[in-house]
């Protein structure tokens, strides 16, 4: 992929935890505006890959390039500043804060130009704050969580919490958003809502997306391209159709040789 169209380039990334090799020489590239899915069996290294992109882990080898700039050594907050947002596999809301405050925390890095300036030009800071509040309200509208904006995040049902977490990540104003199993543990209706949000996020808000998901129906439906990890290695990459019919992918998911790639997520821990 050429420099101008790729938003993210992962080049030969390996990650070692003591004796465990979580990732081996993984290379892929995500285009600007793309909705890219990463799939693979449990323990394949999907979350590790995401952590290498978001900065929580530093790869043992290889490079991560975001918007043409190498970010391999940068801290997570620096990468967030550059425009990488994320949600977590396990819920990670600030449970003791209101939904609105949770989302405002996501806004923090856009507001942070100067504690002193904020203190000195009170009026300016106020106006800036108002503009941000409007943006935050747009996000809240978009994710249809207006009715719970004052609620304490920790008291919400699971599906709504996942939505608030997405709202918080969008508040960062990212160019690329990383979603680690955004639909795990949801019922069908909630999954459909979430799928719709992700598509809108990608198409209308113009945010590139990397999504890890176990529900193959959803992955094949909404993603533009798919990469498959197995034991830390990338074993396939391509259009959803190609992946569905790839024999290596089928054998990676044991017992799925009969063609129907239907993976359950029963064994996923929730919350």
């Amino acid at each position, binding site marked *: 992929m050429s420099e101008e169209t790729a938003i993210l380039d992962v080049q030969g990334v390996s990650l070692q935890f003591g004796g465990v090799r979580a990732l081996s020489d993984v290379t892929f590239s995500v285009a600007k505006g793309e909705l890219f899915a990463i799939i693979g069996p449990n323990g394949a290294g999907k979350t590790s890959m995401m952590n290498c992109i*978001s*900065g*929580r882990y530093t790869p043992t080898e290889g490079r991560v390039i975001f918007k043409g700039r190498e970010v391999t050594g940068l*801290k*997570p*907050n620096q990468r*967030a*500043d550059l425009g990488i*947002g*994320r949600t*977590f596999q396990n819920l*990670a809301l*600030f*449970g*003791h*804060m209101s939904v609105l*405050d949770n989302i*405002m*925390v*996501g*806004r*923090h*890095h*856009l*507001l*942070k130009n100067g*504690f002193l300036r904020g203190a000195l030009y009170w009026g300016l800071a106020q106006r800036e*704050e108002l503009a941000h509040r409007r943006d935050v309200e747009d996000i809240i509208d978009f994710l249809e969580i207006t009715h719970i904006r004052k609620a304490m995040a920790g008291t919400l049902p699971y599906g709504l919490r996942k939505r608030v977490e997405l709202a*918080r*990540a969008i508040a*960062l104003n990212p160019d690329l958003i990383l979603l680690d199993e955004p639909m795990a543990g949801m019922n069908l209706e909630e999954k459909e809502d979430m799928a719709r949000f992700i598509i809108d996020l990608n198409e209308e808000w113009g945010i590139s997306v990397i999504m890890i998901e176990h529900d193959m129906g959803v992955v094949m439906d909404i993603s533009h391209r798919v990469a498959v990890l197995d034991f830390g290695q990338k074993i396939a990459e391509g259009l959803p159709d190609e992946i569905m019919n790839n024999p290596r992918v089928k054998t990676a998911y044991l017992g799925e040789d009969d063609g129907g790639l239907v993976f359950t997520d029963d064994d996923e821990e929730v919350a």
Partner: protein
Amino acid sequence: MDLFFQLLINGIIVGTLYGVVAMCFVLIYKSTQVVNFAQGEFLLIGAWICWYILVQFQIPFVFGFLITLVFMAGLGIFIQMVVLRPMIGEPIISVIMVTIGLSIFMRALVNWLFGQNAVGFPEVFSTSSINIGGLYVQPAYLMSFVISIVIMAGFFYFFKYSRYGLAMRATAFNQQVAQSLGISVKQVFAMAWAISAMVSALAGVVVGMVNGVSSALSFIGIKVFPAVILGGLDSIIGAVVGGLIVGVLENMAEYVDGQFLYWGNMLTIAPFWVLIIILVIKPYGLFGTKDIERV
């Protein structure tokens, strides 16, 4: 009976001040997981620096005080960056040893620089007492009370409404997630120490005005400890309540002792007795959350 009310008032006034220092302690613990045994030394240093500037340069109190605050912010950040940042990830007991060491070092340094004798603060308020409903309160005490309340309100506003307060709460709750949202944990740590040092110094100056500046100031750091444990170590509200309890308690103990028991020295010991009793009943303090306590 007049003595009783007089001591009760004293207890409340001193208690709010303990509450303020306790909040500073909790602020550091909550945001950086450091149990800061050098909290009392911030009061000591703050009061001495302010005293020194006022006496040496003969400038108006407000300016001397502002310079002190700036100095203390710098000191707090310096200590966090140079002494405690390298300790991140070390066992909690090692970190405690470091802050105890820090406290001894700072106290020794101050004794060496300024001596051990108490000195009076340049007078800011007249010392004649004000009569409130038959009870006499020194203006400096009244000022201490008002300032404490204002600081508490400031803390509340800061953490509830300001974006830096939100960022600090977010970091206290989950560093990893906060970082993923663009919050610099380093900055938050530095800010926690800066605020804590500044507000403690403010308390130190207030006590210095009332009682004079001396090494006894650092003892407040030790008194605040039962207050914080009472409140639950990680609760700001708990710190305020704990501070009030300790302040009232020591004055009540003084009253009971002075009137009936004649054991002497109850003032200093009573809070610790009550601390033990409360901890037996509620091991996590009055407002503490269970999962955080492993100290």
